[in-house]
């Protein structure tokens, strides 16, 4: 933050103005922001090269109203000369912006979506903001921010079998709860953080906001450098905390000791080991979203679903996160394996993750998903229950027709 504001020194609680390297919004937050921007009297964005719009929430449009929102998003983007990712040309915003090189270590990204924190996987300060904040960012290129404290999450060891990024963040939520990270940034460090792949880090950083945090940041190490090679749109430099940095709190998580975890209805912090939740009958499985529709997730799912059948009482939906991932998964035979098993494969979309479309739940139904929220009504009926888990657990539930430890299937 020091590099992006005019202060010489910062303390938690200080309110400063932070300059943006990227400002992003989507078909839900963009149009509301454009109205506010007009009322601000700003006719042009501060810098068209730093603004990106993505149509992904209602993709494709579920009704005339959502079609109008996307039309608005496209026309505004064209008029302003900013980058625009529309139908068939992009994907789910947070995976997409990483893939397209918009995100670099040390960058500040203001996003009109709470899961903008996902960019912390690449060592960036990505933070979610509401539409009026985004409008001000579009006009001025900056936002006000009370400097957060930091919670250090020290990861050691290597993930045990069937344990992956999602389980790490569920373990954090189990410990600090859905309010424990408010006004703080989660900083992931240690050999365990470096053992996670970039895809796994996306899954971890994606849910930092569920703890109340503005961001969840990983170190920019060799894995990040390799990911960004030939992809990054700007020069970058890695940042690390000072030796004598002060933290609000320290958590220590041993990856070897984790088992696959599940967040039970209706809070992301309501976490238990999968063995404690086993036996719950499952009506729908949903694999994919802004951080769990990567090749890693799809391969994990295919390792369970490949050569097996989705249980007769269960529906399964697979959502690759971007057009590029969709094609790569198709080339690898994964999509065919899913369809052969009796799952359906969707275009990249936010879709049912937020109850928009593409797989809503009826009253009394139970779902297992790789998404990031399971609030009451999040995926359709308020009388449905959503369990959050990793792609192995979700795929295993699809095969068994109930929640099981993946080793029971393999």
């Amino acid at each position, binding site marked *: 933050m020091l590099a992006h504001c005019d202060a010489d020194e910062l303390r938690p609680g200080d309110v400063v103005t932070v300059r943006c390297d990227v400002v992003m919004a989507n078909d839900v937050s963009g149009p509301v922001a454009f*109205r506010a921007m007009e009322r601000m009297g700003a006719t042009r964005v501060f810098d068209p090269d730093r603004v990106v719009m993505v149509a992904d929430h209602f993709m494709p449009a579920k009704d005339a109203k959502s079609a109008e929102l996307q039309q608005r998003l496209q026309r505004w983007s064209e008029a302003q000369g900013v980058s625009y990712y529309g139908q068939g040309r992009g994907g789910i915003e947070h995976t997409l912006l990483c893939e397209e090189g918009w995100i670099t270590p040390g960058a500040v990204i203001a996003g009109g979506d709470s899961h903008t924190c996902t960019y912390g996987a690449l060592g960036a300060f990505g933070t979610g903001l509401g539409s009026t904040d985004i409008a001000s960012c579009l006009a001025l290129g900056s936002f006000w921010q009370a400097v957060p404290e930091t919670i250090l999450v020290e990861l050691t060891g290597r993930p045990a079998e069937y344990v992956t990024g999602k389980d790490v963040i569920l373990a954090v939520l189990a410990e600090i709860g859905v309010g424990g990270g408010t006004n703080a940034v989660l900083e992931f460090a240690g050999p365990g953080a470096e053992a996670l792949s970039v895809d796994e880090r996306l899954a971890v950083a994606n849910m930092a906001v569920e703890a109340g945090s503005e961001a969840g940041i990983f170190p920019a190490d060799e894995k990040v450098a390799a990911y960004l090679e030939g992809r990054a749109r700007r020069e970058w430099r890695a940042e690390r905390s000072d030796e004598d940095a002060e933290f609000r709190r320290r958590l220590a998580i041993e990856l070897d000791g984790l088992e696959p975890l599940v967040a039970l209805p209706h809070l992301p912090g309501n976490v238990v080991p999968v063995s404690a939740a086993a036996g719950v009958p499952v009506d729908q499985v949903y694999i994919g979203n802004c951080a769990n529709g990567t090749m890693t997730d799809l391969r994990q799912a295919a390792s369970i679903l490949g050569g097996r059948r989705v249980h007769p009482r269960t529906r399964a939906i697979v959502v690759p996160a971007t057009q590029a991932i969709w094609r790569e998964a198709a080339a690898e035979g994964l999509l065919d394996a899913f369809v052969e098993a009796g799952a359906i494969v969707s275009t990249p979309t936010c879709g049912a993750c937020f109850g928009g479309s593409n797989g809503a739940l009826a009253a009394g139904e139970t779902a297992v998903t790789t998404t990031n929220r399971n609030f009451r009504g999040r995926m359709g009926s308020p009388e449905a229950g959503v369990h959050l888990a990793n792609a192995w657990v979700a795929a295993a539930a699809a095969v068994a027709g109930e929640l099981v430890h993946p080793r029971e299937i393999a």
Partner: protein
Amino acid sequence: MRVEGVALRVHGDDVDTDVMYPGAFLNVEDPEEMAPHLFEGFDPSLRERLANGTILVVDANFGIGSSREHVPLAMKANGIRGVVGRSFARIFFRNCVNLGLAIARCPEAVDAAGDGSRVVIDTEGAVEVDGTRYAAPAAPPFLLELGAAGGLVEWTASRVAR
């Protein structure tokens, strides 16, 4: 600045922005079209109890989850003037401040207020419930500046004009 209203008590910690404004209704951009969906997933009957000039009184960690501004926009369109709570989620708090919707952290005021209480939010650092004054943390100077301007739209407009 003093914001007065009639209390509507909403019970429970961790009330999220999905229950307050479900995802299926995010297909609109006009606050007048958002108003009918406020509290839809939580308790639609609450809308009928919103007198013009309601102040919501809520518990801890209110407003978690999505950044959707549809929630405070629908609140304003329904005549809600302010929110008093034990604590707030960050993005929801920001959205209220930016939209000029008075918001105050005051656990003692939450304990004292019931449906129908007269509530006054004093942005200098207090909440009054039926005439009794309780201290609340003073807002940082920048937030007072935003409030005095009327919100982030007005504040930004004055900078754009320069």
